């Protein structure tokens, strides 16, 4: 055995894993080599010293702490896995499902308690929740990129409470700013749901002065006639005499003026 070989086996020697034959061979080398012998005794003392250190026993607290940590980790994991609230709101499918579910529950309870005098507080609370859900569906769909989705949002607006100002605001904004003619057209029609609000008529009149798409102008004129808004007369007069307005729009404005008088 060379000194090199002996050095690689020293740790095995100290931990007594060389085996009988290996140990005999190693000892033979130590007897013949003073350098190796001194190294083994020097480092070997340290090695044995390490052995004498008491082995740390885990206390009972370690176990408790571990389970506490695991619990916290699981909680954190669950929180992280739950989708962020915003994403949940903006998924129309979820909203539709939730709204439909609430409507169904509401109907079921409504039928169940029918004829028992005043509806209990739970029912009116449920009704309010259904209304909120419908508002949510309408508002979020109206902000989608897909024009078909926005159209769907507008049709949900029909189911909102006639006093719902947020849905009314979203509809007015759609009438004025939606890039798609068909969405604007549907939004004008849905405004009729809010005919009791004085804002509706004002918004329709304002929008009529801004719209340039004939079919949307015609729909707005219909709405103003329906709302019997006398303040619409000046704008209708302007349109009926406007050379840039579409022929059909001029006719319609003229017809509306006669109706409003």
């Amino acid at each position: 055995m060379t000194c090199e070989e002996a050095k690689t086996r020293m740790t095995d020697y100290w931990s007594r894993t060389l085996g009988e034959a290996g140990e005999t061979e190693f000892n033979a080398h130590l007897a013949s080599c003073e350098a190796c012998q001194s190294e083994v005794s020097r480092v070997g003392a340290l090695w044995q010293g390490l052995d004498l250190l008491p082995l740390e026993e885990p206390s009972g607290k370690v176990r408790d702490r571990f389970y506490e940590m695991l619990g916290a980790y699981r909680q954190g994991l669950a929180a992280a896995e739950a989708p962020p609230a915003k994403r949940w709101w903006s998924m129309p499918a979820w909203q539709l499902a939730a709204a439909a579910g609430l409507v169904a529950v509401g109907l079921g309870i409504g039928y169940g308690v029918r004829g028992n005098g005043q509806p209990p507080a739970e029912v009116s609370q449920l009704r309010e929740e259904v209304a909120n859900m419908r508002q949510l569906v309408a508002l979020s769909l109206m902000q989608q990129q897909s024009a078909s989705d926005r159209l769907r949002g507008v049709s949900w607006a029909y189911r909102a409470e006639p006093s719902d100002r947020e849905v009314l605001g979203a509809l007015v904004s759609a009438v004025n700013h939606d890039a798609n003619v068909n969405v604007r057209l549907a939004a004008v029609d849905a405004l009729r749901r809010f005919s009791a609000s004085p804002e509706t008529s004002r918004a329709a009149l304002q929008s009529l002065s801004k719209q340039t798409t004939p079919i949307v102008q015609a729909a707005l004129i219909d709405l103003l006639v329906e709302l019997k808004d006398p303040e619409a007369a000046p704008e209708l007069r302007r349109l009926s005499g406007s050379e840039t307005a579409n022929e059909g729009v001029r006719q319609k404005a003229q017809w509306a003026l006669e109706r409003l008088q």
Partner: protein
Amino acid sequence: MNRFLMGGMLAVLGALQAPAQNQAQNQNPAQITVAFSNPSQPRKLVVKTMMHRVSIKGYDGKDAIVESSAISERRRRERSIPPGMHPLNVGGGGIEVTEANNVVTVSAESMFGGGDIQIQVPVETSVMVNTLNNGVNVENISGEIDVESVNGPVSITNSSGAVLATSVNGKVTVALDKVAPGKAMSFSTMNGTIDVTLPADIKANLKMKVDNGDVYTDFDVKVTNDTFDTAQSNTGRGVRIRGNKTTYGTINGGGPEMQFTTFNGRILIHKK
């Protein structure tokens, strides 16, 4: 972003675009092929034009292929550049085709020129067309179809996506093989007939409004009350006056809303 500029600006194409340009030159001189940057994601085609007639067809491929006489016209003009000179400004008639974020945009917004623009895209592509003085044809598309024309007819056939189509002075013809469930649709024109063919089993709520004309259908439409009427009577506003005829109805028990609006024209709803 890949950018392909037809006309004198071809010279500014950078190294990034070089492969596509070579590809285009190898083909029909009146044709440009543009790849969607992410074929596995939803694709969209946007077309904006003033004077061209637009035909869009779904095909069994993965690129957008744009073909137009305006392209060859443009290239002819490039060849006629006098020797030793370069174009400072080339007149109208050009087409610009760009691709960004899986949206291919074809725009020809000059008031001059004209002719056809034919575009082939994969069947599952959403299509959005805006045109002023000419018609639009869309065929065999299953994505959302959103078409607006001012003075031209709009025709959408053999398709299955959600459709929103409008014209001012043109007829709107739509024939759908099948309909994506839950999709709202709307068809409108100021002066023209709306002619829509729908699958026999479609579930829909219909809202049909026509000022000077009538509504015809071979569907079994259950005419329903306008839900608004009841709401209004609750507010005590009295009888509603209407200068037009709006009909509300359901087919096969009802479903997503389908809106049909025309001022001068008929509304035809066919069962396929």
